[in-house]
């Protein structure tokens, strides 16, 4: 065994890339779990094609998983990978362009056959010409080494080769000194019913580790020390799972049942999958016949006194518009979750975007305002889901929660909250008549409002004496009878708007360390990580920059206008063509500089940093702050 030198690094970005069938998501997940167990801070970015199994070996079929881990707090999955693991020529070709000079490339040389090279347009092998000369290339016969390690198991060649991802995982685990117990435990549980495959995967994993230890190919082994974390118990969590758990927590705290009506759609389906397994928490899931039925079932359950939830992505939100508008008229609680993806139309189902903000705000007929909120990170999906339920049940309104594909599938460590510390969710139903009719008998007025919240009473079927009819026709103020009276309609339009405008939301907090910044970078949703990382870099370079992030998009925090007016320049980076910027300009008559990309990819910290510097250069007053 050779003695390896050990080098300490403060941060590493690794991207695993291979064919859709190569198990790259699993490999990435496992490496992430090992990294979490070691105590690094981390962020992940899985990226995969919309096709389940695109033709093998093609660019269209490349699936990747990027992980950024460090001995300090991590805000993004990293703009560029330091290390690229490419299981075939397609994976190399699709990803090598993202690698900085000097980056490490580990490839499975067995897959670099003439045929596989030709499939992606390589006329010569990049392992043999000098096209990779600016990188540190390790071309290793991963497939044949895996097959050799598994000879004794008597598996078919195909089955044996299938474990090559575990060999690669073993090798990388060695290279970065990751703990392996978790992966061993995971393999034993996953393949418990298939002892042959179980043993083969373990053997491949261990062979990869042993290869690292013995080969001359890697002279250096790396260590990334644990990050400083607040004391507590942690787990790794994706945005979709955190969001589902937030809904469960809200239902549990409120004591109400929760009914999810949903139709499968990428990238939201994992919320349906997660909730459908949590029946013991009083969760009912209905996989509806279409998007409209999904939200319809949720609204029906809300009428009956449950927390009604529907989950979807942009195309589904379009279909649900009419029902959401009905909920606006009925003034019933409803939680609508849109996990945004690239549009228009079917667009980029597996890629991220923030382009449904205006649809969420305005995508309904008539004046139908709804509250809109957005989580800023995978972990924040938990608290934001609870906030959606709070607003919906307190103000009797549909609430739109805008997550996105990046938050949905990305993961990060989560310091587990104590259940006692979770927000209270007190919901009161109407139980007795709230008025007196002309003849002196008790009466129920379904649209008689709470003076503070302007919410109407939530009177559920089964409550004697409160029988009433509601519907999508305009209703008379207070009584809820059908009314075509012009003045009443205007009153009702204004009341519905006032109710939403009056929702209590916390003030916008600004991070402005030296208090003298002239530039404010304002974001919403999943751009939180890259914006925060970019601002950190800009400040390290001596720029004075303030930063703020909106969770509540409607209503906006009351101090938003004051905050915006405090700064000479406001930069709003968005993964759309400027939707928040449009809203802010219209609302506050303030000029906004947008930084807008719509590549189906999360924004990179470096590009936002560049946008900040460009803005700072344009503004000599900011120069003067240096």
């Amino acid at each position, binding site marked *: 065994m050779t003695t390896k030198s050990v080098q300490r690094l403060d941060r590493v970005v690794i991207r695993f890339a291979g064919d859709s069938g190569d198990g790259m998501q699993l490999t990435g997940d496992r490496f992430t779990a090992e990294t979490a167990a070691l105590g690094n801070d981390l962020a992940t970015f899985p990226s995969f094609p919309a096709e389940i199994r695109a033709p093998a070996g093609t660019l269209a079929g490349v699936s990747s998983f990027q992980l950024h881990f460090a001995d300090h707090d991590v805000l993004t999955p990293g703009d560029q990978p330091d290390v690229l693991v490419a299981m075939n020529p397609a994976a190399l070709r699709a990803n090598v362009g993202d690698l900085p000079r000097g980056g490490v490339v580990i490839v499975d040389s067995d897959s670099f056959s003439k045929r596989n090279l030709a499939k992606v347009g390589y006329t010569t092998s990049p392992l043999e010409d000098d096209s990779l000369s600016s990188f540190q290339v390790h071309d290793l016969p991963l497939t044949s080494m895996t097959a050799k390690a598994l000879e004794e198991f008597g598996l078919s060649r195909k089955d044996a080769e299938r474990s090559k991802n575990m060999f690669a995982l073993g090798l990388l685990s060695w290279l970065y000194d990751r703990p392996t117990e978790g992966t061993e435990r995971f393999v034993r549980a996953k393949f418990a019913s298939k002892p042959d495959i179980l043993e083969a995967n373990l053997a491949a994993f261990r062979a990869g580790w042993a290869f690292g230890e013995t080969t001359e190919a890697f002279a250096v082994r790396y260590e990334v020390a644990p990050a400083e974390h607040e004391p507590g118990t942690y787990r790794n969590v994706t945005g979709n799972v955190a969001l589902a758990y937030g809904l469960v927590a809200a239902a549990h705290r409120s004591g109400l049942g929760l009914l999810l009506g949903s139709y499968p759609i990428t990238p939201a389906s994992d919320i349906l999958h997660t909730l459908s397994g949590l029946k*013991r928490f009083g969760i009912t899931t209905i996989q509806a016949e279409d998007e409209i039925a999904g939200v319809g079932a949720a609204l029906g359950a809300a009428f009956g006194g449950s927390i009604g939830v529907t989950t979807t992505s942009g195309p589904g939100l379009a279909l649900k518009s009419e029902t959401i508008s009905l909920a606006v008229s009925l003034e019933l609680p409803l939680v609508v979750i849109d996990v945004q993806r690239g549009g228009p139309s079917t667009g980029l189902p597996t890629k991220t975007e923030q382009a449904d903000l205006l649809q969420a705000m305005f995508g309904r007929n008539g004046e139908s305002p709804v509250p809109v909120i957005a989580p800023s990170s995978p972990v924040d999906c938990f608290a934001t889901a609870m906030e959606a339920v709070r607003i919906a049940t307190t103000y009797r309104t549909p609430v739109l929660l805008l997550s996105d594909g990046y938050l949905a599938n990305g993961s990060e460590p989560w310091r*587990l909250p104590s259940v006692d510390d979770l927000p209270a969710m007190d919901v009161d139903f109407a139980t007795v008549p709230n008025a007196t009719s002309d003849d002196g008998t008790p009466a129920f007025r379904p649209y008689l409002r709470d003076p503070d919240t302007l919410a109407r009473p939530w009177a559920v079927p089964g409550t004697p004496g409160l029988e009433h009819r509601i519907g999508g026709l305009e209703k008379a103020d207070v009584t809820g009878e059908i009314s075509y009276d012009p003045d009443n309609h205007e009153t009702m339009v204004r009341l519905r708007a006032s109710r939403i405008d009056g929702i209590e939301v916390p003030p916008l907090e600004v991070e402005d360390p030296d208090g003298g910044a002239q530039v404010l970078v304002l974001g919403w949703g999943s751009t939180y990580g890259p914006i925060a990382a970019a601002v950190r870099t800009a400040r390290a370079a001596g720029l004075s920059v303030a930063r703020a992030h909106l969770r509540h998009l409607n209503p906006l925090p009351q101090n938003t206008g004051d905050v915006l007016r405090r700064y000479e320049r406001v930069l709003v980076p968005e993964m759309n063509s400027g939707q928040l910027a449009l809203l802010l300009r219209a609302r506050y008559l303030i000029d906004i500089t947008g930084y807008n990309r719509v590549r189906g990819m999360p924004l990179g910290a470096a590009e936002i940093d560049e946008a900040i510097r460009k803005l700072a250069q344009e503004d000599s007053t900011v120069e003067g702050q240096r």
Partner: protein
Amino acid sequence: MTTVDMPTPAHRSGLEGVPAVGDGVTQTKKDFTSGSEVRWCPGCGDYAILAAIQGFMPELGIRRENVVCISGIGCAARFPYYLDTYGMHSIHGRAPAIATGLAASRPDLHVLVATGDGDALSIGGNHLVHALRRNVNLTILLFNNRIYGLTKGQYSPTSEVGKVTKSTPAGSVDAPFNPVSLALGAEATFVARTLDSDRKHLTSVLRAAVEHRGASLVEIYQNCPIFNDDAYQVLKDREAGEARLIRMEHGEPLVFGPESDRRAVVPSSRGAGVEVVAAADAADRAVVHDVHTEDPTLAFALSRLDDPQMAHVPIGVFRDVDRPAYDDLVRDQVTAAREAAGGPATDGDLADLLAGNDTWSIA
């Protein structure tokens, strides 16, 4: 993929779980009549249906606060406003979807859906067939007047071919749905047809529909005096009606018509269906009606006797079979999950869920 065996509950009433009125309490038609002014056109068949239902509901002995009527859009969809129960006048075609969510979350409610031929079969066709397929415990009243009334007279999915309307000046080229055939094809467990003008028949069919656990579809032939007047006049006219209406009764041979022209439904001599022959020629071949047979073939064949000319129109219950109701099964799974875990979730259970099985601690 794997499948698991699902339980097959014993026969249950459609009203099981819905609280009854207290001892000595009697409800009357007035209890089910809301104060809202009824705004259908004079002569509309909906008045008769409303009166029949307001008169019939008290007989069920259930608390009116546990009755919910959900509708979509159309003339029929105004129905909930006139019943002094809980109600929702929702959006076009979506009532079955909304009712599904309500029924799944509340076992103690009797949920009615009031819909029309446009609402249920055109814009809401998808929701109707899926509510029937799932067998959600709903009573669905489909008011079929073969026309769009509220939008002032366009043809509907049940209008006959060639019908001249505002939107089909040269005659409709759309082939119509037969709602009973459609429902049977959608795996409905209870399908019936009745007439707005026959209070006694309407009430008896409704009673069977409410008693059925699962989705009950009741097609009600309903007259629109403004845009499609007398569409069913040949059935309502005493003599013409007697010759055409096949009043189906479970266990009885399907024989109908006046003594002078007695007819019988017999197995078809030309195919798998049934046909109508002179009773004298039927000998003992007349089909004996069986609403409880699992095989829907007979019910379907009977539904095909009807045609736009209405030469022979079966009314009554076509099919009434037991199959677990969707909402019961959904609730049973929640109950089973709770029981398996030792009861409703505690704060500790929630903490365990959030933690998962791969945590690490930092001191």
